[in-house]
């Protein structure tokens, strides 16, 4: 069987009477099936004083449910499955990849925790997972070089009552303060079929997929759609901050507000990030790292999010080089791209890479980023799993003028946050006029 020549992701979709969206994609190459569930809830649904809760809740989903009142890993691993979950600002996902023979098991368990989680959540399980999460925070943020940078940036990019003000991991204080009552309220509000999307991808017939979905999830009670979150943020000037950290080299971060996920100019800014800082051919790598040797590394990305995105650029100073010179060189390049836009060669390269990357994205059925995960992403954020094709077209059809306009409109030097992370005791290495920022 010869494969397709252009990236595509065919599927069928039905919605159960309780509101659960079910998506099935057939791929019979390997005798495995991916089960993937998205709940449209993330740290954007938290409020100040209760930060980090969506993620802590995700941990509890693996500890047991009413009818399987012990850990979720043993039965699934014993069936040859792998499983995991993750939480970000906008959504929480859970997945299993199981041998075809264990599909019923995976669906039984996913449906049990969607419908019957609370009887299994005890004070002791909550306390243990709270400690695990505090250790996750220590490992990935507190004990890691530059680990506090993003926390510092979002705390200034967004006002205190905007849910992107804090990171999904939350504050240690709030995590420690989580109570069983919060777990109950959170579950009732966000964890029900109407706020979820189930996708199955792999070695399964479509009709059988829908039949099994109905069988395991069909009698779960429908819930009330959560209130949409409304929040906005803007910068009216450039803000400069300095953070001292246990690092060897200073690093500068620049962050701008940018258009929300899938809205106009979101794809152009994604392309712009590649063109500026992805690979040796990128403009900033070439000037900062390769030619001038001002920086050890440079990176950029468009962090696409539901309530509004941000564009982030970072560069680490080479020994003896200053963040001031780096920032000046970046500004020259930003001004140039906002003036002239990308070259034809740059756009051609971007299109080639886009096509290849969309092709690579359809190689696996499950796990983070696999086909089942992508179908749920499009369904959750666009109500349309077919958005894969539209998404590809956003990149294929992007023009040099569009990228230029996006740079001009959003990457303005008078509306951004500039964060210098410097070795402890050396605040003078920061950009001039930077104010100390504290995080923790």
């Amino acid at each position, binding site marked *: 069987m010869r494969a397709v020549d252009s990236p595509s992701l065919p599927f069928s979709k039905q919605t159960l009477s309780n509101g659960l969206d079910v998506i099935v994609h057939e791929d019979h190459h390997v005798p495995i099936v991916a089960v993937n569930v998205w709940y449209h809830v993330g740290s954007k649904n938290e409020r100040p004083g209760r930060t980090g809760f969506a993620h802590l809740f995700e941990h509890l989903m693996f500890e047991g449910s009413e009818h399987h009142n012990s850990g979720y890993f*043993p039965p699934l691993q*014993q069936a040859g499955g792998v499983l995991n979950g993750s939480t970000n600002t906008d959504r929480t996902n859970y997945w299993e990849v199981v041998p075809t023979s264990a599909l019923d098991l995976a669906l039984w368990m996913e449906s049990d925790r969607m419908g*019957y989680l609370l009887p299994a959540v005890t004070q002791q399980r909550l306390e243990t997972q709270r*400690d695990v999460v505090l250790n996750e925070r220590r490992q990935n943020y507190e004990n890691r070089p530059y680990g506090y940078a993003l926390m510092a940036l979002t705390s200034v990019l967004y006002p205190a009552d905007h849910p992107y003000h804090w990171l999904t991991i939350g504050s240690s204080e709030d995590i420690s303060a989580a109570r069983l009552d919060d777990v109950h309220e959170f579950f009732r509000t966000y964890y029900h079929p109407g706020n979820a999307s189930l996708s199955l991808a792999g070695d399964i017939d479509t009709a059988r997929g829908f039949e099994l979905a109905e069988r395991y999830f069909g009698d779960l009670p429908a819930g009330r759609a959560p209130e949409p979150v409304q929040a906005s943020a803007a910068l009216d000037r450039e803000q400069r901050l300095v953070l001292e950290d246990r690092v060897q080299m200073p690093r500068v971060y620049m962050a701008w507000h940018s258009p929300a996920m899938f809205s106009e100019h979101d794809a152009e800014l994604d392309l712009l990030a590649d063109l500026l800082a992805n690979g*040796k*051919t990128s403009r900033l790598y070439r000037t900062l790292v390769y030619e001038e040797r001002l920086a050890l590394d440079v990176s950029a990305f468009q962090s696409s999010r539901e309530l509004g995105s941000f564009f982030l650029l970072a560069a680490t100073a080479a020994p003896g080089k200053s963040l001031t010179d780096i920032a000046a060189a970046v500004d020259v390049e930003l001004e140039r791209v906002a003036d002239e836009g990308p070259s034809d060669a740059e756009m051609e*390269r971007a299109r080639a890479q886009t096509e*290849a990357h969309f092709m690579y994205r*359809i190689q696996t059925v499950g796990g983070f980023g696999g086909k089942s995960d992508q179908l749920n992403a499009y369904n959750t954020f666009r109500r349309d799993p077919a958005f894969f094709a539209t998404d590809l077209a956003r990149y294929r059809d992007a023009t040099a003028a569009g990228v230029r306009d996006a740079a001009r409109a959003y990457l303005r030097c008078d509306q951004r946050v500039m964060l210098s992370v410097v070795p402890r005791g050396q605040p003078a290495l920061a950009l001039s006029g930077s104010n100390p920022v504290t995080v923790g």
Partner: protein
Amino acid sequence: MRVDRSQLPAVGSDPAFKFPRIVRHTLGNGLAVRTLEHYTVPVVTFVMLIDGGVVSDPAGQEGLAAITADMVDEGTGDLTAIEVSESLAQIGADYDVDVGADAIVFTLTTLERFAERGGGLLADLLTRPSLRLEDFERVRQMRLDRLRQLKDSPPAVAERAFLRLMYPDHPYGHLAIGNDASLSGLELERVVRCHRDIFRPNRATLVIAGPMTHDELRQVADTTFGGWGTSSDPVASTIADVAPSAGAPRLTVIPREGAAQSELRIGHLSAHRNSPDYPSLLVMNAVLGGQFVSRINLKLREEKGFTYGARTGFDWRRRLSPFALQASVHSASTAEAIRDSFAELEGIRGARPPTEKEMLLARASLTRGYPRNFETAQQVARSVAQLALYDLPDTYFEEFIPKVNAVSADQVVSAAQRYIDPARASILVVGDHHAIADSLASLGYGAPQLLSADV
């Protein structure tokens, strides 16, 4: 029909697992080629495995293989580093180099229609790199800067020090990147020689997986790598096996003042990858710490909440390989985490043999999901490269499931007794020494050897 929630649904029988056929070819220049037909998406992967790596670094020139591997995409023929990168981007290629203990592995994945271009580019890089002085100096400086940055990363500091403890007198005892002194002293001429000695067809294996027939894939190999010149020089002398060193310090601490966690390693040299006990070792490790549902993770994470995760594993090499536990634990829990870990290492050696339930779970988790490891062209090609690395037969993947399923609880205990020896395990902690010193003293291992993150 309502779902019966009184018990978990039964799991059906496993589908038969068949690994795609591996076809071996030898090109005129002696290059070993293995091809795999892989028809899912129009993507092709090239994996070139070259005999060399950490183990081939001469004493005092640690980091040589890695910088040589890093230099190959800095230019070839008329192309500069930037132009090489541009050529890779034009075909949407995913290019990656991994410098391991015994092999340097290059991977290039691209779209099917660019197969010849991608393979040709890889051949240009590997067989005709420019190795220019100015590129060398830039790359070496970047690696020195990288080394400096690693001093702030507890896992990197721990890995480096732990290798030294395991292999005090063997080339395996250093990180691929090398150290300040060795990198500073390297000269381009050494890189040129390293490339000449190591990058040759009789030390390499090329694996190609993609949506083409074996003949077509072999054709691609021939067109792209057929012109790689042979060398009459003998292959460099082989490195001796490792003699486990006696008298390694029991407890080592690398102070990191104010650290929120202790980065922990506990282990010793243990086994060979091609040991006949390999299946028993895998099952033993799965029970002990090789998966989420293992004794050590359940104890340290799910029962005590000391860590985000703890695991054990073998760091496989061609020669004697270490077995180690690793975890990043809350500073206040450091001593207790070490005590709990030792209790588990000890327990599986006889006092608490694996239960029938643990055995079922460990075997099943290794075998039932096995087909999942071979979904993409890249996964398949990299797996086959492992066969070449460890001299394993082409039937290896087909035999894996029955061999693992045949492992008994007695074999696990006996493997643990032979290959895990808590009495000679080295304990390494990267953490806040002042905060943990008193509790560490209570473990009874005496005063720790103190090292700096710089060594």
